């Protein structure tokens, strides 16, 4: 019976139109998770990146400790811990909040290294010129060092954001209905189309990633106008 059923359905065309609403819902959730965790991770990256070159030992130690620990941590395990184990410490987060927190903390640690290393890569002469011009420490950072470092940060941050987008697929495990989750539901309902559904899923992620890399390229061009 099942055999007959599936061979009968095989003769139909791919029911793409029936899939679109679910895939669209999933895409919106995926973009939402990606944008929110991008904001969290960028803030953490800047804070920890600047913190790790702070003149205060305490701030430096804290920033470096954060980077070391969260880079060594497996994101999926962290996500499980935040979503399933934290409620036992009386911290209950929604699926979306747990996802954003876990991804943000993880990606932020990688971002902090980008911020730190690009600032370190600005030549020493620029620091010295700032001192010679009698600019205060903060002004030197904000007006001289950071604009140059920012231009260098864009390509690695673009790659990092693609990594972030890819890692949003892990929210499937805590049953947040993102693209991957919706595709798995589709697969249950349209079993014989499994290869097509996953192929389509890969394609959607590829388009989203390309969007990030194009944005990064445009941003880089804009930030290097002064060169």
């Amino acid at each position, binding site marked *: 019976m099942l055999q007959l059923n599936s061979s009968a359905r095989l003769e139909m065309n791919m029911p793409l139109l029936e899939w679109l609403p679910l895939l669209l819902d999933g895409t919106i959730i995926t973009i939402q998770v990606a944008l929110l965790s991008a904001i969290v991770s960028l803030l953490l990256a800047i804070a920890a990146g600047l913190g790790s070159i702070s003149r205060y030992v305490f701030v430096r130690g804290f920033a470096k400790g954060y980077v070391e620990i969260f880079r060594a941590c497996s994101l999926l*395990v962290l996500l499980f*811990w935040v979503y399933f184990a934290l409620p036992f410490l009386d911290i209950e987060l929604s699926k979306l909040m747990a996802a954003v927190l876990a991804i943000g903390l993880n990606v932020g640690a990688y971002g902090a290294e980008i911020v730190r290393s690009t600032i370190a890569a600005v030549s020493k002469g620029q620091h010295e010129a700032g001192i010679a011009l009698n600019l205060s420490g903060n002004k030197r950072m904000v007006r001289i060092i950071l604009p140059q470092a920012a231009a260098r940060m864009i390509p690695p941050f673009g790659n990092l954001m693609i990594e972030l987008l890819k890692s949003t697929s892990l929210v499937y495990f805590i049953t947040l209905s993102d693209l991957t989750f919706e595709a798995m539901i589709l697969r249950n309902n349209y079993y014989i189309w499994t290869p097509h559904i996953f192929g389509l899923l890969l394609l959607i992620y590829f388009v989203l990633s390309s969007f990030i890399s194009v944005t990064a390229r445009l941003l880089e061009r804009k930030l290097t106008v002064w060169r």
Partner: protein
Amino acid sequence: MWNWDYVIELLPVFLKAFPVTLGAAFLGFTLSIVFGLLFALAGRSAFWPIRWTSRAIVEFIRSTPLLVQVFFLYFSVPMLTSFAMSAFITGVIALGLHYGTYMSEVFRSGIDAVPRGQWEAATALHLSKRKTWLSVILPQALPPVVPVMGNYLIVIFKETPTLMAITLVELLLTAKTEVSASYRVFEPYTIVGLIFLVVSLIFSIGVRRLENRLSQRENPGGGGKR
């Protein structure tokens, strides 16, 4: 809150799952080196269709999530071809393919760093293409990138829990099974988190040591390069 008796009960269970995680990570890493070299060499091919195809494949794999690739390999390949692979094999292949694309970038940078004179010398000595690659270029291109490869071993190790999606019984899935049997959530997930943290930190100390040793070798005072 934290029950030590339960923790002691859990340890042998995790000890059993740990080799699966480690095995998937090491085999995936080995395969990623193989794929990485293939992609890197194909990406430099003189024949443009090979060059473009290889680069397009690398770009596509790098831009899509490992989890979806794992699903595709595990659920679709048996339907498209008539052969099915175990969860472990599928996981290793997925890790190898996914990180092979990253590894190819690492190799590319290593190959690009070999001075042009070395290529010219190989041409002048009339070495075959095979010989040029195997005895001149790769022996100089690979050692400097070993620490970066080590970092990817750590990354691959941390990505192995993704394979629980296709029911590979590694550490995290073991923890999940324990949780649903005992209804105690905190200990299993915390222990797994700590295992990953400690092992990655140990690996990264190893990689840093390797990096230091290599940079000493690069120094003019530190003895000649082989």
